[in-house]
């Protein structure tokens, strides 16, 4: 049993290393990645549930249930895709730590995401044309669109909070890494929605 | 290690332990027999593998201790070579043994395929919370039998049981005869077995289905084929007419009281399928899905207060003055 610890030898010094970083050098980036994996897989499972339940029905949607409308959902998904270059621009400005531009970019993103929330509410309440409690088809539709919508809502909350920080301060170096992370998360939200849009709004409309 | 003697002791106990008429170790037909032989094979292989592994562990510990105690010099390179060989051989043996088991299992699976080409009997079982509804189908509707809580089968030919559920998931398991099948609402599956000799075999619900899952048994009565034909003929007859005035009064009480709301008796206006069919109640060995032996006293207790015997059951207590109860029992006792 040893009561004393092993003697130490100095073998280097890290005091010159930077105290903030971007991309996968930043430890916070990995947390965002972890949550993207979890949430992405959650959406995959919701989609699997959707596809699984279809086997219990002769037609999809079932007899007596209206097909979903594609107008607003197509507007929504187009807007989302169109927003990707903008968020890419925000990410680049964040890497440069350009306070003024990032501040404007985050504000724009916050406004955009609130638009997406409103459109999502419309998609659920109007475009789907079915209630969650009508039958298993309705439940599955609400599950997929609603789960993704929950992620949208959480993203909105984060963006509004980030907007507040950027306007009301104090802004710290790490907030630029956070802004870059949220631009990545934005891409995740949009890209996961595209196949789900097809599954929920286009597939039930195929003859 | 205390596991070894225990294993041997328990194997010895196995023969005199549980009742032989509800045990997978006492197969009474080819399906359960095939599984039992697979089990003994697996047990033998498993025991050998286990003894070898634990033996190797014990030997390794003993040998290392001896080496340290004697202060023997070690040769790390040689040790490393020997360990590499040993672990590789162990790994390879593991793969071979597992492959052997997999192949043996494939053979068992092939032997257990449903024999649809041969002569067979088809019966339909529907699970309810906490009883079994049994139908013996026939192309002619007048020849169909609906029964409950006792399964009758002939020996010597395959019995195909189509299973489904009326409410929650149940499972039908007669260990002497075959493995189990789950009874799932909106799904129909087929369990098959064949019984070698006549007798009464125990079956029980094997998927947790609520309060009285523990008391959802199903006696399986196997008849020689000629006896089976006789049983089926009796089962097809409508309910026996009451033999005396007391029994007639009993029938009246049954039809005008709450009983007829849930129970059917063919040949009478009572046709509700909410609860078990009672047409041949008196010929059954047990009551309430294997919970009580059938008899006048038990039947009386059941009618008066089912909740005391099987708390949570759907059947409510039926308050009857003693004379009415006697009459009802007289009628039900005549339903052979």
């Amino acid at each position, binding site marked *: 049993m040893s009561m004393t610890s092993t003697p130490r030898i100095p073998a280097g010094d890290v005091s010159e290393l930077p105290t903030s970083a971007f991309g996968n050098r930043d430890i916070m980036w990995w947390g965002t990645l*972890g949550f993207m994996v979890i949430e992405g897989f959650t959406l995959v499972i919701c989609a699997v549930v959707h596809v699984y339940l279809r086997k219990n029905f002769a037609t999809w949607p079932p007899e007596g249930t209206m097909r979903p409308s594609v107008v607003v959902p197509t507007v929504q998904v187009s807007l989302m895709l169109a927003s990707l270059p903008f968020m890419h621009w925000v990410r680049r400005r964040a890497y440069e730590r350009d306070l003024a531009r990032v501040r404007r970019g985050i504000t724009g993103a916050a406004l955009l995401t609130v638009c997406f929330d409103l459109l999502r509410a419309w998609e659920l309440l109007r475009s789907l044309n079915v209630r969650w409690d009508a039958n298993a088809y309705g439940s599955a539709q609400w599950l997929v669109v609603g789960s993704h919508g929950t992620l949208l809502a959480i993203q909105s909350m984060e963006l509004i909070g980030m907007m507040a920080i950027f306007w009301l301060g104090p802004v710290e170096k790490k907030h630029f890494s956070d802004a870059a992370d949220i631009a990545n998360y934005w891409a995740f939200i949009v890209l996961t929605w595209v196949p789900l849009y097809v599954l929920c709004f286009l597939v039930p409309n195929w003859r | 290690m205390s596991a070894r003697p225990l294993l041997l002791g328990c194997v010895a106990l196995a023969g005199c332990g549980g009742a032989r008429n509800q045990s997978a170790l006492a197969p009474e037909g080819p399906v359960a027999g095939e*599984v039992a032989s697979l089990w003994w094979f697996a047990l033998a292989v498993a025991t050998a593998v286990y003894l070898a592994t634990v033996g190797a562990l014990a030997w390794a510990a003993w040998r*290392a201790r001896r080496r340290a105690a004697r202060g023997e010099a070690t040769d790390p390179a040689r040790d490393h070579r020997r360990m590499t060989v040993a672990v590789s051989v162990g790994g390879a043996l593991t793969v071979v043994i597992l492959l052997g088991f997999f192949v043996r299992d494939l053979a068992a699976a092939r032997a257990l395929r449903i024999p649809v080409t041969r002569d067979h009997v088809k019966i339909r079982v529907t699970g309810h919370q906490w009883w079994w509804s049994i139908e013996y189908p026939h192309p002619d509707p007048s020849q169909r039998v609906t029964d409950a809580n006792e399964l009758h089968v002939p020996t010597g030919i395959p019995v195909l049981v189509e299973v489904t559920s009326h409410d929650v998931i149940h499972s039908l398991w007669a*260990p002497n005869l075959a493995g189990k099948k789950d009874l799932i609402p909106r799904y129909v599956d087929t369990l098959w077995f064949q019984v070698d000799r006549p007798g009464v075999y125990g079956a029980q*619900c094997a998927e947790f289905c609520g309060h*009285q899952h523990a008391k959802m048994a199903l006696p399986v009565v196997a008849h020689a084929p000629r006896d089976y034909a006789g049983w089926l003929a009796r089962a097809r007859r409508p309910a026996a007419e009451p033999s005396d005035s007391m029994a007639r009064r009993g029938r009246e009480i049954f039809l005008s009281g709450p009983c007829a709301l849930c129970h059917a008796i063919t040949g009478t206006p009572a046709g509700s399928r909410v609860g078990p069919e009672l047409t041949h109640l008196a010929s059954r060995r047990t009551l309430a899905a294997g919970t009580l032996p059938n008899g006048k006293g038990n039947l009386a207790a059941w009618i008066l207060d089912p909740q005391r015997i099987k708390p949570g059951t759907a059947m409510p207590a039926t308050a009857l003055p003693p004379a009415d109860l006697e009459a009802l029992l007289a009628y039900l006792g005549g339903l052979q």
Partner: protein
Amino acid sequence: MTTETSAPVAEAIGSDDDAALAELERVWRPRPGLRGWLTTTDHKAIARRYVVTAFVWFALAGLNAVVMRLQLAQPERGLVGPDRYNQLFTVHGSAMMFLFAVPVMQAMAIYLVPLLVGARNISYPRLNAFGYWMFLIGGVLLFASFYLNMGPDTGWFAYVPLSGPQYTPGKRADVWAQMVTFTEIAGLVAAVELLATIFKTRAPGMSLDRMPLYVWSILVTSLMILFALPAVAIASTLMLAMDRLVATHFFNPAEGGDPLLWQHLFWFFGHPEVYIMFIPGLGFVSSIVETFARRRVFGYPVMVASLVLTGFVAFGLWVHHMFATPIPQLGRGFFTAASVLIAIPTGVQIFCWIATIWSGRPRFATAMLFAIGFIVVFTIGGITGVMQASVAFDLQVHDTFFVVAHFHYVILGGVLFPLFGAVYLWFPKFTGRLLDERLGRWHVALFFIGTNLAFFPMHLLGLQGMPRRIYTYRPELGWGDLNLLATVGAAIIGVSVLLFVVNVLRSRRHGALAGDDPWQGSTLEWAATSPPATYNFRDTPVCRSVTPLWSGDGEPAEALPVVTGLATHRRQILVTTVLDAVPDNRHNHPADTSAPFWMAATLGVTFIGAIFTPWAYVIGFALAGIAFAIWAWPRGDHPEDAVLPRRGES
């Protein structure tokens, strides 16, 4: 490089070290009293309470088992009725699986991993605190409802339609579903932070192929958690809860729903779940065997490959829980093959440990006895598991006491034995004192005897026709004697656990002083003090091999290289590269805060409210927004962080 000769114990290198050390201590010190308890973000403080809380749930669930065993000891005993019995086994299983087995393994990892990789704290300290509070709320929810006689009663896997709105009225199944929500969030959060710690904060020089096997086991487990837990979270928090609360039809056959869908989703989670419990146990055994055989575990690459392969294949087995359902024949064959295959990597690991012992100089301290007990007990469970891979055999023993025997053997053997061993190994690190070895021997002996006596007879009971989850059985079935034997075994297990608790409580105060490195261990945690300082290591250790504290095999190294330069005026950790752990940047951690507690409190209100009304989600979302603002708003404590309005400097 020169070695400082004047200070034999302290890690003194420079001349103004005392001031720097004092500053470091002050910066990392938790606040005093209750405030400290609510605001601490020290991974060790959180892990300690996490482990203790998990053991409390373990003891309560164990009490349930004792009552169940008393009821089943003889036929037709009237100790408890069916309603109470159904709650007993549901809460026993749910608590053991959701509130004990996985959380305690994660909690041990939360304590050990930062130390084993040479870091000052876990990657996300506030998230860590938040995870604990969520876990605590989940456990209180389950046990409070049970003791109020409104506990869940449809089994730990809550099959539908039984647990659906039609057949389980009231709120019991909703309580179960939301308990799952809390524990799943806690589990996912712990997995994310452990992954970030393992990937990005390893000691300089600790490339992936020098990581301790235990850390590899946590890496594999955490990745598995990311993919397994969402399945049950969706099934219970979303689908089952919605069927019950707002009349969705996911599982309602009358409207196109499907009871089998529940089983697929649950077991897609449920099978990996048991490996999530078991793989950290494999990591513990490696640490114990290495330390007490005084030899590096043989076959490092093969051991790592086995862990990874087990983690992967575990996701391909789930249908073996559904062999009695109407699934296609061909599908069954695939799952049989996978269920047989998974035995191979674990078998190889066992052979490697045997080889390690063979070539080492073993000391049979209590921890080592538990590791050996693991091999002896778990192997029985592993073998019966492979037997059940056969569809034909499984159809006889599925849902019987044979299965109960199997999974208790693998859980007691594969989770409890390694866990107890790990506590005996690391208790001196946690507390500075050693657990009593004599009491330890009694503990392991009684636990071993009790386990075998309680569960071996159950194999026979299952084959003799006894199904699971029955509150009583008729005398003529002949199951009484073996059940009585099993009950005696359960009592012995209870006594052994009691001895363990006594040992822990006594040794905390009166145990022999351990010093930093009582076992002459091989890995970095033994270079910290016992117990470690709040900041773990004053200077970050450098890792030169799989056994950084050993020079040759089993011999302690003469000196430990360290890197200096992390700040002492604020909480700072070193971030290194993923593959080779080259120092890359420094990350500043926030000060202690009660924000995680408030966030958990708002989510507690949300999800418990959701038992009763869907509007709880709306209100909860608003409350969570406020808690999030408290969490995320910058304090501005350190002017050096602030950004100038122009294009900033780095």
